[in-house]
């Protein structure tokens, strides 16, 4: 559980530090005229960005707990480490490329280089779909070599972790699909969707890198 606890401690410490900073030197019992500076929203952020950040904290907790469970379960005697398919390296590269492509698209959106938006979103979508297909191919490879999900706890964890990561990517693809649809439908109101998707893609890349590292090292 140490891993989960450390992640959680970081999330909580960030939040608590921020709240304490907000509250430490205040004297709430004194009535005061409205302070203009206090109108600025915390982090000076957009509501959807705050919601996404909060959601990423939830997903962090989710994956941290699974990885904690993985390390706890690993210590028991019957654990037979899984040999990860080499294909995962290629998939990792594709996911990194998807993340870079999204960043490129986001920069285009910020710079109002609208001509780059459509190719940017399409490249991202293709790369991400390739990643998902690659993950599926890795599953097939394992099954072909007799490494079934029920074969060993290590296998079960591998399928669980990659599967849940893929589900989260699919959720992102839903938002990506709606933004793409809007863009091709002639709407230019896609900048925020692209920005939020970019953060989400980077986040899921980070989750994958940590998870892949954990799988490789054990």
């Amino acid at each position, binding site marked *: 559980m140490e891993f989960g606890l450390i992640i959680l401690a970081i999330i909580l410490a960030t939040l608590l530090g921020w709240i304490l900073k907000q509250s430490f030197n205040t004297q709430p019992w004194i009535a005061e005229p409205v302070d203009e500076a206090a109108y600025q929203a915390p982090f000076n952020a957009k509501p959807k960005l705050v919601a996404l950040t909060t*959601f990423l904290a939830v997903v962090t907790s989710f994956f941290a707990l699974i990885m904690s469970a993985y390390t*706890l379960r690993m210590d028991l005697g019957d654990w037979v480490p899984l040999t990860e398919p080499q294909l995962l390296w290629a998939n990792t590269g594709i996911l990194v490329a998807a993340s870079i492509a999204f960043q490129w698209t986001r920069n285009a959106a910020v710079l109002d280089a609208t001509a780059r938006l459509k190719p940017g979103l399409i490249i991202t979508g293709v790369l991400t779909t390739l990643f998902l297909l690659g993950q599926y191919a890795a599953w097939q490879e394992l099954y072909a070599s007799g490494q079934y999900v029920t074969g060993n706890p290590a296998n079960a964890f591998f399928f669980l972790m990659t599967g849940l990561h893929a589900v989260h990517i699919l959720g992102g693809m839903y938002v990506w699909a709606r933004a793409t649809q809007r863009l091709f439908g002639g709407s230019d109101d896609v900048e925020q969707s692209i920005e939020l998707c970019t953060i989400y893609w980077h986040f899921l890349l980070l989750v994958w890198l940590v998870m892949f590292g954990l799988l490789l090292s054990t």
Partner: protein
Amino acid sequence: MAYVAIADRDHEEEHHDPQTFITKYVWSQDHKVIAIQYGATAIFVGVIALVLSAMMRLQLGFPDTFSFITPENYYQFVTMHGMIMVIYLLTALFLGGFGNYLIPLMVGSRDMVFPYMNMLSFWVYLLSVIILLASFFVPGGATGAGWTLYPPQAIMPGTPGTDWGIILMLASLGVFIVAFTMGGLNYVTTVLQARCRGMTLMRMPLSIWGIFMATILGLLAFPALLVSAIMMLLDKTILTSFFMPAISSMGADPGYTGGSPILFQHLFWFFGHPEVYIVALPAFGIVSDLLSTHARKNIFGYRMMVWAIIAIGGLSFIVWAHHMYVSGMNPYFGFFFATTTLIIAVPTAIKVYNWVLTLWEGNIHLRVPMLFAIGFIFTFIHGGLTGLFLGNVTIDLPLSDTYFVVAHFHMVMGVSPILVVFGAIYHWWPKITGRMYNETLGKWHFWMTFLGTYAIYLPMHYLGFQGVPRRYFAMGDTDFLPASAQDLNAAITMSALFVAATQILFFANVIWSLTRGPKADPNPWDATSLEWQTPDTPPKHGNWGHDLPEVHRWAYDYSVPGYADDFIPQNVPADVAPAGRDHGVEH
């Protein structure tokens, strides 16, 4: 984007108010309607859970009397009672119900930041309730694994409901967590982003602090339950071995290869302990506001109350293994968790002292909400003190799995939050419905519930000391227990049935109020917080009419020296004394 802009954006929605009955009351995106939908659904399942507990008590008080309660039924009742009360009633009611109603009104917003997602949250919650209740009607019935659903027994033959009951239970939990996450993201974002002008974090009423922190706990802790639910579903359906050890069942090999049941306990309690505070923190916050309002005094130590809520929230993540002292853990591990558990008593005690000091020399009005709030202080201190016993490993070991534990957790997270729920409903009822309730009926409801629950749970501690184990369908002939233990059990059952029956008074009051209750004053308690300052009672869609309120002071300006009235609403400017009042805002 500053949040003035958000307020403006929401303001535009006034032009397309929901018109038809369907969009106004069924597929509503108004936080107040969603709150009532959440609350009504939660209370509905709560009544079912109450009936289940009455059936359990019938069996325990009068064993061998009721042929319709089999051992299998009994375990199903225990399981469903616990799960419904903790998650589908208390969590949903405090956060989905009160959170939805109070957050936008108390922080001066027109609605939640994402109204559509808010609506979705309720309907997904309703789906989870339907899945849960459906498990009573599937082959094999509901699961009887206990609300903790410990493997391997939760999915092995021999436990009731291992065919479909456990699958529906896990699925329902997963759906509930999705619903909660959608609601929770809304509550957090609304508190952070949609506060009106002047509503700084440290001017928020403590109710909002409690709900806010509980939501954060929920968002971080429910993933642990989701992870364990997914893993157990896989163990049950495709025979993976996350939790299921290599085991033979009635001579047959079900095919498990050696999972870890203890792993499930860690994950479950990593969610389970914060869950206690997901229920308790909103109760703490709400009770602070009730005490302050009805004692006409500012809350004692507001900042300390906020920091205590934050500290309790943080600490609640590092005490989970005190639920597992008997699972055979390393003594140093137990020592660590005993220490953190006892440390959490410090901020909790600060809160209790501050509640009592708020009452000190206050102008106490013993109205119905105040009675429930003061009742909460009693039951919470009581349940908290027995927690100090159980937090110590050496005392927990003999008391574990006895009725002492049952009495402890019912006192601290059953009776106490429910008293706050009732207090809060009576307190905000005039604002929610625009009508008053019957004060006499409310007082009867309080005294019978409060004294009745003591009659149930005080003797239970004694049964626990005698060693009466919990979870047993019937004690049979047991040498170490005197025959009088059974008499005590029968008395407890009588009290439990009495308390269950007196809840009819509450529903009678609801019906009385809705049909012939007098019209309520917009601010019947002379309260300061924003929800009492709305232009309409009950508030209309958009809450604030044309202009959003502007906040100039905290929510606890009661009995300020120099003022004719004993309260100053939050939206009264700092430098302007209201007409007819003396000058001088001195604190």
